[in-house]
Protein backbone atom coordinates (compact mmCIF):
# COMPACT_ATOMS: atom_id res chain seq x y z
CA UNK A 1 0.00 0.00 0.00
CA UNK A 2 1.32 3.41 -0.91
CA UNK A 3 1.85 5.48 2.18
CA UNK A 4 -0.40 8.48 2.36
CA UNK A 5 1.78 11.56 2.38
CA UNK A 6 0.73 14.84 3.90
CA UNK A 7 3.30 16.80 1.95
CA UNK A 8 4.23 16.41 -1.66
CA UNK A 9 7.94 16.24 -2.31
CA UNK A 10 7.79 19.71 -3.83
CA UNK A 11 6.18 21.36 -0.84
CA UNK A 12 8.50 19.47 1.47
CA UNK A 13 11.49 20.75 -0.48
CA UNK A 14 10.11 24.26 -0.18
CA UNK A 15 9.76 23.84 3.57
CA UNK A 16 13.28 22.50 3.83
CA UNK A 17 14.90 25.20 1.71
CA UNK A 18 15.61 27.94 4.30
CA UNK A 19 17.01 25.45 6.76
CA UNK A 20 19.03 23.75 4.05
CA UNK A 21 20.66 27.02 2.99
CA UNK A 22 21.62 27.91 6.55
CA UNK A 23 22.84 24.42 7.35
CA UNK A 24 24.71 24.23 4.06
CA UNK A 25 26.53 27.48 4.67
CA UNK A 26 27.24 27.30 8.36
CA UNK A 27 27.35 23.57 9.10
CA UNK A 28 28.25 21.61 5.99
CA UNK A 29 30.78 24.01 4.52
CA UNK A 30 32.70 24.50 7.78
CA UNK A 31 32.38 20.78 8.46
CA UNK A 32 34.07 19.79 5.23
CA UNK A 33 36.66 22.51 5.72
CA UNK A 34 37.48 21.02 9.12
CA UNK A 35 37.74 17.51 7.69
CA UNK A 36 39.99 18.73 4.90
CA UNK A 37 42.19 20.86 7.13
CA UNK A 38 42.61 18.00 9.59
CA UNK A 39 44.78 16.35 6.93
CA UNK A 40 47.04 19.40 6.53
CA UNK A 41 49.52 21.19 8.76
CA UNK A 42 47.78 24.52 8.31
CA UNK A 43 48.38 27.14 11.00
CA UNK A 44 47.25 30.72 11.28
CA UNK A 45 50.67 32.10 12.09
CA UNK A 46 54.12 31.06 11.02
CA UNK A 47 55.35 29.55 7.76
CA UNK A 48 52.65 26.94 7.34
CA UNK A 49 49.98 29.63 7.26
CA UNK A 50 51.00 30.68 3.77
CA UNK A 51 51.87 27.26 2.41
CA UNK A 52 50.05 24.51 4.26
CA UNK A 53 51.00 21.02 3.18
CA UNK A 54 48.95 17.89 2.95
CA UNK A 55 50.24 15.63 5.70
CA UNK A 56 47.85 12.70 5.50
CA UNK A 57 47.05 11.21 8.86
CA UNK A 58 49.98 12.84 10.64
CA UNK A 59 47.81 15.04 12.88
CA UNK A 60 45.85 12.01 14.02
CA UNK A 61 48.93 9.88 14.49
CA UNK A 62 50.57 12.60 16.58
CA UNK A 63 47.51 12.93 18.79
CA UNK A 64 47.75 9.24 19.56
CA UNK A 65 51.53 9.21 19.91
CA UNK A 66 52.12 6.84 22.85
CA UNK A 67 55.17 8.85 23.99
CA UNK A 68 53.06 11.85 24.94
CA UNK A 69 49.54 10.41 24.99
CA UNK A 70 49.11 10.25 28.75
CA UNK A 71 51.09 13.39 29.55
CA UNK A 72 49.06 16.08 31.23
CA UNK A 73 48.03 18.74 28.81
CA UNK A 74 48.17 16.38 25.84
CA UNK A 75 45.34 14.91 23.85
CA UNK A 76 45.14 11.54 25.60
CA UNK A 77 45.02 12.93 29.10
CA UNK A 78 42.40 15.42 27.98
CA UNK A 79 40.38 12.64 26.40
CA UNK A 80 40.41 10.68 29.65
CA UNK A 81 39.40 13.72 31.68
CA UNK A 82 36.60 14.45 29.24
CA UNK A 83 35.30 10.90 29.29
CA UNK A 84 35.15 10.92 33.08
CA UNK A 85 33.58 14.35 32.97
CA UNK A 86 30.86 13.23 30.55
CA UNK A 87 30.16 10.05 32.50
CA UNK A 88 29.95 11.78 35.86
CA UNK A 89 28.42 15.13 35.04
CA UNK A 90 26.15 14.26 32.13
CA UNK A 91 25.10 10.64 32.50
CA UNK A 92 25.21 10.36 36.28
CA UNK A 93 24.79 14.00 37.22
CA UNK A 94 22.44 15.63 34.79
CA UNK A 95 20.43 12.64 33.61
CA UNK A 96 19.96 10.97 37.00
CA UNK A 97 19.42 14.19 38.88
CA UNK A 98 17.09 15.38 36.15
CA UNK A 99 15.15 12.14 36.40
CA UNK A 100 14.98 12.40 40.18
CA UNK A 101 13.86 16.03 40.03
CA UNK A 102 11.22 15.27 37.41
CA UNK A 103 9.89 12.39 39.50
CA UNK A 104 9.81 14.52 42.65
CA UNK A 105 7.93 17.22 40.72
CA UNK A 106 5.08 14.80 40.14
CA UNK A 107 4.45 14.43 43.85
CA UNK A 108 5.06 17.79 45.48
CA UNK A 109 2.87 20.83 46.00
CA UNK A 110 2.70 23.42 43.20
CA UNK A 111 4.28 26.19 45.28
CA UNK A 112 7.36 24.15 46.12
CA UNK A 113 7.46 22.83 42.60
CA UNK A 114 7.58 26.33 41.17
CA UNK A 115 10.42 27.28 43.49
CA UNK A 116 12.54 24.22 42.70
CA UNK A 117 11.88 24.51 38.98
CA UNK A 118 12.78 28.17 38.96
CA UNK A 119 16.11 27.52 40.68
CA UNK A 120 17.04 24.57 38.48
CA UNK A 121 16.04 26.34 35.29
CA UNK A 122 17.71 29.54 36.46
CA UNK A 123 21.02 27.69 36.62
CA UNK A 124 20.44 26.63 33.04
CA UNK A 125 19.33 29.85 31.38
CA UNK A 126 21.52 32.50 32.93
CA UNK A 127 24.33 33.70 30.62
CA UNK A 128 27.56 31.79 31.03
CA UNK A 129 29.69 34.83 31.85
CA UNK A 130 27.33 35.57 34.70
CA UNK A 131 27.32 31.97 35.87
CA UNK A 132 31.09 31.73 35.66
CA UNK A 133 31.43 34.81 37.78
CA UNK A 134 28.79 33.70 40.28
CA UNK A 135 30.64 30.44 40.84
CA UNK A 136 33.92 32.20 41.13
CA UNK A 137 32.47 34.26 43.97
CA UNK A 138 30.76 31.16 45.38
CA UNK A 139 34.03 29.19 45.57
CA UNK A 140 36.33 32.04 46.59
CA UNK A 141 38.74 30.67 49.18
CA UNK A 142 38.71 33.56 51.62
CA UNK A 143 35.20 34.95 51.39
CA UNK A 144 33.14 32.70 49.15
CA UNK A 145 29.63 31.66 50.09
CA UNK A 146 30.56 27.97 50.15
CA UNK A 147 33.42 28.41 52.61
CA UNK A 148 31.24 30.71 54.68
CA UNK A 149 28.79 27.84 54.99
CA UNK A 150 31.59 25.38 55.72
CA UNK A 151 32.88 27.56 58.52
CA UNK A 152 29.37 28.04 59.81
CA UNK A 153 29.00 24.27 60.04
CA UNK A 154 32.31 24.02 61.85
CA UNK A 155 34.02 22.39 58.87
CA UNK A 156 37.42 23.43 57.57
CA UNK A 157 37.18 25.70 54.51
CA UNK A 158 38.17 24.06 51.22
CA UNK A 159 40.48 25.33 48.53
CA UNK A 160 38.22 23.70 45.97
CA UNK A 161 39.56 25.17 42.73
CA UNK A 162 43.06 24.08 43.64
CA UNK A 163 42.48 20.83 45.51
CA UNK A 164 39.48 19.29 43.73
CA UNK A 165 39.23 21.18 40.43
CA UNK A 166 37.87 18.18 38.57
CA UNK A 167 35.03 17.64 41.04
CA UNK A 168 34.29 21.33 40.92
CA UNK A 169 33.66 21.25 37.19
CA UNK A 170 31.69 18.00 37.45
CA UNK A 171 29.37 19.46 40.06
CA UNK A 172 29.28 22.75 38.23
CA UNK A 173 28.19 21.12 34.99
CA UNK A 174 25.62 18.96 36.74
CA UNK A 175 24.21 22.05 38.37
CA UNK A 176 24.28 24.00 35.12
CA UNK A 177 22.63 21.40 32.90
CA UNK A 178 20.24 19.34 35.02
CA UNK A 179 17.34 21.57 33.97
CA UNK A 180 17.18 20.23 30.43
CA UNK A 181 16.87 16.62 31.54
CA UNK A 182 14.40 17.59 34.23
CA UNK A 183 12.15 19.38 31.76
CA UNK A 184 12.37 16.62 29.21
CA UNK A 185 11.51 13.93 31.76
CA UNK A 186 8.85 16.15 33.25
CA UNK A 187 6.93 16.19 30.02
CA UNK A 188 7.65 12.52 29.51
CA UNK A 189 6.02 11.68 32.84
CA UNK A 190 3.18 14.02 32.05
CA UNK A 191 2.50 12.11 28.84
CA UNK A 192 1.85 8.86 30.74
CA UNK A 193 -1.88 8.36 31.20
CA UNK A 194 -2.71 8.87 34.91
CA UNK A 195 -4.84 5.71 34.86
CA UNK A 196 -1.65 3.60 34.77
CA UNK A 197 -0.54 5.01 38.10
CA UNK A 198 -4.01 4.85 39.61
CA UNK A 199 -4.11 1.15 38.93
CA UNK A 200 -0.76 0.74 40.64
CA UNK A 201 -1.92 2.81 43.60
CA UNK A 202 -4.87 0.50 44.02
CA UNK A 203 -2.45 -2.43 44.02
CA UNK A 204 -0.46 -0.67 46.76
CA UNK A 205 2.72 -0.10 44.74
CA UNK A 206 5.43 2.09 46.24
CA UNK A 207 6.70 5.15 44.46
CA UNK A 208 9.89 3.31 43.53
CA UNK A 209 7.90 0.39 42.07
CA UNK A 210 5.75 2.76 40.05
CA UNK A 211 8.85 4.49 38.79
CA UNK A 212 10.67 1.31 37.88
CA UNK A 213 7.83 -0.76 36.48
CA UNK A 214 5.56 1.80 34.87
CA UNK A 215 7.24 5.11 34.22
CA UNK A 216 10.75 4.09 33.21
CA UNK A 217 9.81 1.64 30.44
CA UNK A 218 7.38 4.16 28.96
CA UNK A 219 9.85 7.00 28.74
CA UNK A 220 12.71 5.03 27.24
CA UNK A 221 12.56 7.06 24.03
CA UNK A 222 12.94 10.26 26.03
CA UNK A 223 15.89 8.82 27.87
CA UNK A 224 17.65 8.09 24.60
CA UNK A 225 16.92 11.59 23.27
CA UNK A 226 18.15 13.07 26.50
CA UNK A 227 21.34 11.04 26.59
CA UNK A 228 22.21 11.83 22.98
CA UNK A 229 21.78 15.55 23.47
CA UNK A 230 23.43 15.96 26.84
CA UNK A 231 26.35 13.72 25.92
CA UNK A 232 26.99 15.80 22.84
CA UNK A 233 26.60 19.06 24.70
CA UNK A 234 28.81 17.97 27.55
CA UNK A 235 31.52 16.85 25.16
CA UNK A 236 31.53 20.33 23.70
CA UNK A 237 30.89 22.34 26.82
CA UNK A 238 33.31 25.21 27.26
CA UNK A 239 31.90 26.98 30.31
CA UNK A 240 34.22 25.27 32.86
CA UNK A 241 36.97 27.31 31.21
CA UNK A 242 35.55 30.37 32.93
CA UNK A 243 36.16 28.73 36.30
CA UNK A 244 39.50 27.02 35.90
CA UNK A 245 40.97 27.93 32.50
CA UNK A 246 41.64 24.22 32.20
CA UNK A 247 44.02 24.24 35.16
CA UNK A 248 45.62 23.92 37.54
CA UNK A 249 48.21 21.82 35.77
CA UNK A 250 45.71 20.94 32.99
CA UNK A 251 43.69 18.90 35.46
CA UNK A 252 40.41 20.27 34.09
CA UNK A 253 41.41 20.64 30.48
CA UNK A 254 38.45 19.12 28.68
CA UNK A 255 38.74 18.34 24.98
CA UNK A 256 36.82 21.49 24.12
CA UNK A 257 39.33 23.56 26.08
CA UNK A 258 42.26 21.61 24.69
CA UNK A 259 40.90 22.17 21.21
CA UNK A 260 40.54 25.87 21.89
CA UNK A 261 44.12 26.05 23.09
CA UNK A 262 45.46 24.21 20.06
CA UNK A 263 43.41 26.15 17.53
CA UNK A 264 43.34 29.56 19.11
CA UNK A 265 46.37 29.89 21.30
CA UNK A 266 48.87 27.88 19.31
CA UNK A 267 46.91 28.61 16.10
CA UNK A 268 47.44 25.05 14.85
CA UNK A 269 44.30 24.58 12.81
CA UNK A 270 45.29 21.24 11.31
CA UNK A 271 45.72 19.64 14.70
CA UNK A 272 42.67 21.43 16.13
CA UNK A 273 40.55 20.19 13.26
CA UNK A 274 41.72 16.61 13.87
CA UNK A 275 40.64 16.93 17.50
CA UNK A 276 37.24 18.19 16.35
CA UNK A 277 36.80 15.22 14.02
CA UNK A 278 37.70 12.75 16.76
CA UNK A 279 35.19 14.35 19.12
CA UNK A 280 32.55 13.89 16.45
CA UNK A 281 33.43 10.23 15.93
CA UNK A 282 33.14 9.60 19.66
CA UNK A 283 29.76 11.27 19.68
CA UNK A 284 28.70 9.15 16.74
CA UNK A 285 29.66 5.93 18.50
CA UNK A 286 27.87 6.95 21.69
CA UNK A 287 24.72 7.94 19.77
CA UNK A 288 24.69 4.56 18.03
CA UNK A 289 25.10 2.78 21.36
CA UNK A 290 22.21 4.68 22.94
CA UNK A 291 20.00 4.02 19.96
CA UNK A 292 20.77 0.35 19.86
CA UNK A 293 20.14 -0.06 23.58
CA UNK A 294 16.83 1.75 23.16
CA UNK A 295 15.94 -0.50 20.26
CA UNK A 296 17.01 -3.75 21.83
CA UNK A 297 14.99 -3.17 24.96
CA UNK A 298 11.81 -2.24 23.16
CA UNK A 299 12.16 -5.27 20.91
CA UNK A 300 12.58 -7.53 23.92
CA UNK A 301 9.47 -6.05 25.39
CA UNK A 302 7.46 -6.56 22.26
CA UNK A 303 8.52 -10.19 22.25
CA UNK A 304 7.63 -10.54 25.89
CA UNK A 305 4.23 -9.05 25.20
CA UNK A 306 3.35 -11.52 22.44
Amino acid at each position, binding site marked *: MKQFSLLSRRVAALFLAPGAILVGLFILLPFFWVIFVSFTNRTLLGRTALNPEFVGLQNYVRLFDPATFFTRGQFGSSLIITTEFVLLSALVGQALLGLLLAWLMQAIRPGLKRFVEAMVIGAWILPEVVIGFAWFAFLDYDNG*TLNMIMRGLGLPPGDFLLQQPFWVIVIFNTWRGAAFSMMLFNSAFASIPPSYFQAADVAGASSWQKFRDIALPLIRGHVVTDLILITMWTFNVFTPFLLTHGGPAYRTELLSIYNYRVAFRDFEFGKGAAVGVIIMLINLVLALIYLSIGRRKSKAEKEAAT
Partner: protein
Amino acid sequence: MSGGAFLSRIGFSVLAALLGVLFALPLIWFIFAPFNARAEMGLALPDPWTLSNFATVFQNSFAVRALFNSLIQSVGGVILIGAAATLAAYALSRSTIPGKSAVTYVLLLFSSVVSGSAAMVPIFLIISAMGLIDTQLAVILVFAGGLLPTAMFILRDFIDGIPKSYEESAMVAGASPLQAFFDVALPVIRPGIVVIVVWAFVNIWGSFLIPFILLRSSEQMPASVAIYSFYSEAGTPIVTLLAAYALIYSLPVVLLYLFVSWRFGFRFFGGIKA
Protein backbone atom coordinates in the same frame (compact mmCIF):
# COMPACT_ATOMS: atom_id res chain seq x y z
CA MET B 1 -4.03 8.38 51.73
CA SER B 2 -2.10 5.77 53.68
CA GLY B 3 0.45 6.69 56.32
CA GLY B 4 3.32 5.38 54.24
CA ALA B 5 2.31 7.39 51.22
CA PHE B 6 1.96 10.46 53.39
CA LEU B 7 5.43 9.98 54.81
CA SER B 8 6.93 9.42 51.42
CA ARG B 9 5.21 12.55 50.22
CA ILE B 10 6.79 14.50 53.07
CA GLY B 11 10.11 12.91 52.20
CA PHE B 12 9.68 13.96 48.59
CA SER B 13 8.95 17.53 49.59
CA VAL B 14 11.92 17.74 51.90
CA LEU B 15 14.22 16.29 49.29
CA ALA B 16 12.90 18.61 46.59
CA ALA B 17 13.23 21.65 48.82
CA LEU B 18 16.76 20.65 49.72
CA LEU B 19 17.70 20.30 46.05
CA GLY B 20 16.09 23.64 45.27
CA VAL B 21 18.14 25.31 47.99
CA LEU B 22 21.34 23.64 46.76
CA PHE B 23 20.65 24.93 43.28
CA ALA B 24 20.03 28.40 44.63
CA LEU B 25 23.20 28.63 46.73
CA PRO B 26 25.66 29.76 44.05
CA LEU B 27 23.26 32.49 42.97
CA ILE B 28 22.38 34.01 46.33
CA TRP B 29 25.39 36.30 46.11
CA PHE B 30 23.82 37.88 43.02
CA ILE B 31 20.74 38.97 44.88
CA PHE B 32 22.73 41.17 47.25
CA ALA B 33 25.95 42.28 45.57
CA PRO B 34 24.39 44.50 42.88
CA PHE B 35 22.71 46.59 45.56
CA ASN B 36 25.79 46.90 47.72
CA ALA B 37 28.12 49.79 46.95
CA ARG B 38 30.93 47.96 48.75
CA ALA B 39 30.26 44.45 47.49
CA GLU B 40 33.09 41.95 47.51
CA MET B 41 33.38 38.26 46.81
CA GLY B 42 31.91 37.46 50.20
CA LEU B 43 28.22 37.21 50.87
CA ALA B 44 27.02 40.27 52.74
CA LEU B 45 23.77 42.10 53.25
CA PRO B 46 23.96 45.53 51.65
CA ASP B 47 24.08 48.27 54.23
CA PRO B 48 22.50 50.43 53.02
CA TRP B 49 20.71 49.04 49.98
CA THR B 50 21.59 51.29 47.09
CA LEU B 51 21.15 51.64 43.37
CA SER B 52 24.44 53.48 42.94
CA ASN B 53 26.09 50.55 41.15
CA PHE B 54 23.35 50.63 38.55
CA ALA B 55 23.69 54.38 38.17
CA THR B 56 27.40 53.95 37.38
CA VAL B 57 26.70 51.12 34.97
CA PHE B 58 24.19 53.19 33.05
CA GLN B 59 26.82 55.87 32.52
CA ASN B 60 28.77 53.40 30.42
CA SER B 61 27.16 53.96 27.03
CA PHE B 62 29.10 51.09 25.47
CA ALA B 63 27.66 48.64 27.97
CA VAL B 64 24.13 49.98 27.65
CA ARG B 65 24.18 49.85 23.90
CA ALA B 66 25.56 46.31 24.12
CA LEU B 67 22.37 45.15 25.86
CA PHE B 68 20.39 46.47 22.93
CA ASN B 69 22.74 44.70 20.50
CA SER B 70 22.29 41.45 22.40
CA LEU B 71 18.57 41.87 21.98
CA ILE B 72 18.83 42.44 18.22
CA GLN B 73 21.08 39.43 17.76
CA SER B 74 19.02 37.13 19.95
CA VAL B 75 15.64 38.12 18.58
CA GLY B 76 16.89 38.04 15.00
CA GLY B 77 18.46 34.64 15.51
CA VAL B 78 15.41 33.25 17.26
CA ILE B 79 13.02 34.33 14.50
CA LEU B 80 15.21 32.77 11.86
CA ILE B 81 15.74 29.53 13.79
CA GLY B 82 12.11 29.28 14.83
CA ALA B 83 10.86 29.67 11.27
CA ALA B 84 13.46 27.54 9.51
CA ALA B 85 13.43 24.75 12.11
CA THR B 86 9.63 24.53 12.21
CA LEU B 87 9.30 24.29 8.46
CA ALA B 88 12.15 21.82 8.11
CA ALA B 89 11.14 19.65 11.05
CA TYR B 90 7.58 19.52 9.79
CA ALA B 91 8.70 18.56 6.31
CA LEU B 92 10.97 15.84 7.70
CA SER B 93 8.25 14.50 9.93
CA ARG B 94 5.43 14.48 7.42
CA SER B 95 6.95 13.87 4.02
CA THR B 96 8.26 10.67 2.48
CA ILE B 97 11.69 11.99 1.59
CA PRO B 98 14.03 8.98 1.60
CA GLY B 99 16.65 8.86 4.34
CA LYS B 100 14.93 11.61 6.26
CA SER B 101 15.39 9.99 9.63
CA ALA B 102 19.15 9.76 9.16
CA VAL B 103 19.36 13.42 8.14
CA THR B 104 18.61 14.87 11.56
CA TYR B 105 21.16 12.62 13.26
CA VAL B 106 23.87 13.33 10.74
CA LEU B 107 23.29 17.06 10.97
CA LEU B 108 23.32 16.87 14.74
CA LEU B 109 26.71 15.19 14.66
CA PHE B 110 28.08 17.65 12.13
CA SER B 111 26.90 20.51 14.27
CA SER B 112 28.87 19.09 17.19
CA VAL B 113 32.05 19.58 15.16
CA VAL B 114 31.07 23.02 14.00
CA SER B 115 30.22 24.21 17.50
CA GLY B 116 33.82 23.50 18.53
CA SER B 117 36.48 26.13 18.22
CA ALA B 118 38.10 24.41 15.25
CA ALA B 119 35.31 25.65 13.00
CA MET B 120 35.59 29.28 13.99
CA VAL B 121 38.07 29.86 11.21
CA PRO B 122 35.99 28.58 8.29
CA ILE B 123 32.99 30.41 9.71
CA PHE B 124 35.02 33.58 9.87
CA LEU B 125 36.20 33.03 6.30
CA ILE B 126 32.66 32.42 5.02
CA ILE B 127 31.29 35.52 6.72
CA SER B 128 34.25 37.46 5.46
CA ALA B 129 33.62 36.27 1.91
CA MET B 130 30.00 37.35 2.27
CA GLY B 131 31.22 40.79 3.29
CA LEU B 132 29.38 40.59 6.59
CA ILE B 133 32.20 40.98 9.11
CA ASP B 134 31.26 43.45 11.81
CA THR B 135 27.52 43.23 11.16
CA GLN B 136 24.78 41.99 13.45
CA LEU B 137 23.42 39.96 10.56
CA ALA B 138 26.57 37.85 10.56
CA VAL B 139 26.00 36.85 14.18
CA ILE B 140 22.34 36.11 13.50
CA LEU B 141 23.08 33.92 10.48
CA VAL B 142 25.86 31.95 12.12
CA PHE B 143 23.77 31.20 15.17
CA ALA B 144 20.79 30.28 13.04
CA GLY B 145 22.91 27.80 11.10
CA GLY B 146 24.71 26.42 14.12
CA LEU B 147 21.67 25.89 16.33
CA LEU B 148 19.38 24.67 13.58
CA PRO B 149 20.26 20.95 13.67
CA THR B 150 19.52 20.64 17.38
CA ALA B 151 16.37 22.72 17.00
CA MET B 152 15.22 20.47 14.19
CA PHE B 153 16.08 17.39 16.21
CA ILE B 154 14.02 18.45 19.21
CA LEU B 155 11.17 19.77 17.12
CA ARG B 156 10.94 16.76 14.85
CA ASP B 157 10.75 14.57 17.89
CA PHE B 158 7.92 16.74 19.05
CA ILE B 159 6.02 16.73 15.76
CA ASP B 160 6.42 12.97 15.41
CA GLY B 161 4.57 12.68 18.68
CA ILE B 162 1.53 14.44 17.27
CA PRO B 163 -0.92 12.18 15.42
CA LYS B 164 -1.05 12.77 11.68
CA SER B 165 -4.80 12.41 11.84
CA TYR B 166 -5.16 16.08 12.73
CA GLU B 167 -3.93 17.28 9.37
CA GLU B 168 -5.30 14.29 7.54
CA SER B 169 -8.82 15.10 8.56
CA ALA B 170 -8.29 18.72 7.56
CA MET B 171 -7.08 17.65 4.15
CA VAL B 172 -9.96 15.24 3.74
CA ALA B 173 -12.14 18.28 4.42
CA GLY B 174 -10.43 19.99 1.46
CA ALA B 175 -7.55 21.93 2.98
CA SER B 176 -4.32 22.29 1.01
CA PRO B 177 -1.09 21.02 2.61
CA LEU B 178 -0.13 24.61 3.35
CA GLN B 179 -3.46 25.31 5.00
CA ALA B 180 -3.16 22.11 6.95
CA PHE B 181 0.22 23.21 8.16
CA PHE B 182 -0.63 26.76 9.09
CA ASP B 183 -4.16 26.29 10.41
CA VAL B 184 -4.04 22.84 11.95
CA ALA B 185 -0.49 21.74 12.68
CA LEU B 186 1.10 25.03 13.71
CA PRO B 187 -1.16 25.69 16.70
CA VAL B 188 -0.50 22.17 17.97
CA ILE B 189 3.27 22.47 17.48
CA ARG B 190 3.41 25.82 19.23
CA PRO B 191 4.56 24.55 22.65
CA GLY B 192 7.43 22.80 20.90
CA ILE B 193 8.38 25.98 19.09
CA VAL B 194 8.35 27.81 22.40
CA VAL B 195 10.91 25.37 23.78
CA ILE B 196 13.12 25.95 20.73
CA VAL B 197 12.72 29.70 20.95
CA VAL B 198 13.68 29.83 24.61
CA TRP B 199 16.58 27.46 24.10
CA ALA B 200 17.91 29.41 21.12
CA PHE B 201 17.41 32.78 22.78
CA VAL B 202 19.27 31.67 25.88
CA ASN B 203 22.09 30.29 23.77
CA ILE B 204 22.57 33.41 21.68
CA TRP B 205 22.05 35.79 24.57
CA GLY B 206 24.84 34.20 26.59
CA SER B 207 27.34 33.48 23.87
CA PHE B 208 30.72 35.16 23.78
CA LEU B 209 32.91 33.51 21.19
CA ILE B 210 30.92 33.96 17.97
CA PRO B 211 30.12 37.66 18.33
CA PHE B 212 33.64 38.25 19.53
CA ILE B 213 35.10 36.60 16.44
CA LEU B 214 32.70 38.21 13.96
CA LEU B 215 32.30 41.72 15.31
CA ARG B 216 34.83 44.51 15.66
CA SER B 217 33.42 47.90 16.42
CA SER B 218 32.31 48.78 19.91
CA GLU B 219 28.88 49.82 18.60
CA GLN B 220 28.05 46.28 17.47
CA MET B 221 29.24 44.25 20.45
CA PRO B 222 26.71 42.36 22.60
CA ALA B 223 26.62 42.41 26.39
CA SER B 224 28.62 39.19 26.74
CA VAL B 225 31.60 41.07 25.31
CA ALA B 226 30.83 44.45 26.88
CA ILE B 227 30.86 42.90 30.34
CA TYR B 228 34.63 42.91 30.03
CA SER B 229 34.61 46.67 30.37
CA PHE B 230 33.83 46.05 34.03
CA TYR B 231 37.17 44.44 34.61
CA SER B 232 39.82 46.59 36.17
CA GLU B 233 43.11 47.52 34.60
CA ALA B 234 44.68 44.54 36.31
CA GLY B 235 42.03 42.27 34.82
CA THR B 236 40.11 41.63 38.01
CA PRO B 237 36.37 42.10 38.03
CA ILE B 238 35.14 45.36 39.45
CA VAL B 239 32.77 43.40 41.60
CA THR B 240 30.17 46.08 42.28
CA LEU B 241 29.66 47.15 38.68
CA LEU B 242 30.00 43.67 37.28
CA ALA B 243 27.34 42.34 39.63
CA ALA B 244 24.96 45.16 38.71
CA TYR B 245 25.55 44.73 34.99
CA ALA B 246 25.27 40.96 35.26
CA LEU B 247 21.90 41.36 36.92
CA ILE B 248 20.61 43.66 34.18
CA TYR B 249 22.09 41.34 31.59
CA SER B 250 20.35 38.35 33.16
CA LEU B 251 16.98 40.05 33.42
CA PRO B 252 15.72 39.32 29.87
CA VAL B 253 16.24 35.57 30.19
CA VAL B 254 14.60 35.56 33.60
CA LEU B 255 11.63 37.50 32.23
CA LEU B 256 11.46 35.18 29.27
CA TYR B 257 11.37 32.22 31.63
CA LEU B 258 8.63 33.76 33.73
CA PHE B 259 6.60 34.66 30.67
CA VAL B 260 6.88 31.26 29.08
CA SER B 261 6.18 29.29 32.22
CA TRP B 262 3.15 31.48 32.90
CA ARG B 263 1.82 31.43 29.36
CA PHE B 264 2.80 28.01 28.03
CA GLY B 265 4.70 25.94 30.54
CA PHE B 266 7.80 24.11 29.39
CA ARG B 267 6.77 21.04 27.49
CA PHE B 268 8.51 18.49 25.36
CA PHE B 269 6.84 15.72 23.49
CA GLY B 270 7.90 12.58 21.77
CA GLY B 271 11.08 10.71 22.44
CA ILE B 272 13.00 8.74 19.90
CA LYS B 273 10.86 6.21 18.14
CA ALA B 274 12.79 3.07 18.65
